């Protein structure tokens, strides 16, 4: 402790040590547990609503998801070929080297911190 010891120090410590809460411990514990029970019920409802909303959203967007996955499977080979060819050009190689450098730098900064 860094405070100089004097009468006020003693007075303050006694004051804090002697303070008593007004509400009986049992009543406080009961009220706290009631509030936790309410919070738990609310959390359960929110989780269920979120799950239901996510499921509904999935059903709603499923036609687009199916169309997208079909498109992806049809064109993935072509896109990969084009992408690989571009990465082999000087600009693509420079981009890859730049990204790798940034990632390494980020990792080093994280380690230093």
């Amino acid at each position, binding site marked *: *402790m*860094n*405070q100089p010891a004097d009468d*006020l*120090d003693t*007075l*303050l*410590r006694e*004051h*804090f040590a002697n*303070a008593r*809460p*007004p*509400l009986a*411990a049992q009543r*406080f*514990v009961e*009220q*706290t*547990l009631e*509030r*936790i029970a309410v*919070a738990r019920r609310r959390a359960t409802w929110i989780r269920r609503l979120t799950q239901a909303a996510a499921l509904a959203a999935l059903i709603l967007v499923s036609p687009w998801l199916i169309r997208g996955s079909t498109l992806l499977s049809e064109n993935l080979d072509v896109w990969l070929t084009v992408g690989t060819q571009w990465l082999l050009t000087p600009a693509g190689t420079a981009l890859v080297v730049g990204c790798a450098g940034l990632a390494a730098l980020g990792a080093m900064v994280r380690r230093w911190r």
Partner: protein
Amino acid sequence: MQSRLSAAALGQAADSMIIALACAGDEGAFTELVRRRQARVRKFMYHVCRDRGLGDDLAQQVFISVWQSLGRLRAVDAFDGWLKRIMVTTWLEELRRRRIPTTGEVDAEQAGAYGERTAEKLDLDAALGHLAPDVRLCIVLSYNEGMAHPEIATLTGLPLGTVKSHIARGAAKLREWLAAYDGGGR
């Protein structure tokens, strides 16, 4: 999860056992934990907020936060330090929510000419109430929780110099007010 131990067994169990069980989701152990820590949390909240109803409300919020995140506590030994952090955070959030200015040496609006109000019962409790919230928080953490200045700085996010200054100036103000009261009252 229902408790694995009877209420009597929980009442006699060591703190570390109760905390470990509560972390594992044991409801009886959590109730026992609330019972064991309630006086400390309520006293702290009352001393910083100066309102018994609000103090109990904030203490309950602390235990709700504890319940919500107890599963993430890694070490049982760290529980009391972790609880202290939740207590301080809950109070600082309350201050921000109510837009109460936290800085300054003294709550000037309330304090007024403190030394002149000798007819009123001006004890240490009332004098503490006139300190600005930040100053009062540092005084309470130092004298009620027995924390060292660097610990208070870490917990509150205030610079160490500010913590030292708050405690020194707060104590000086209390001395000044109490002396004025003693002098004026006699």
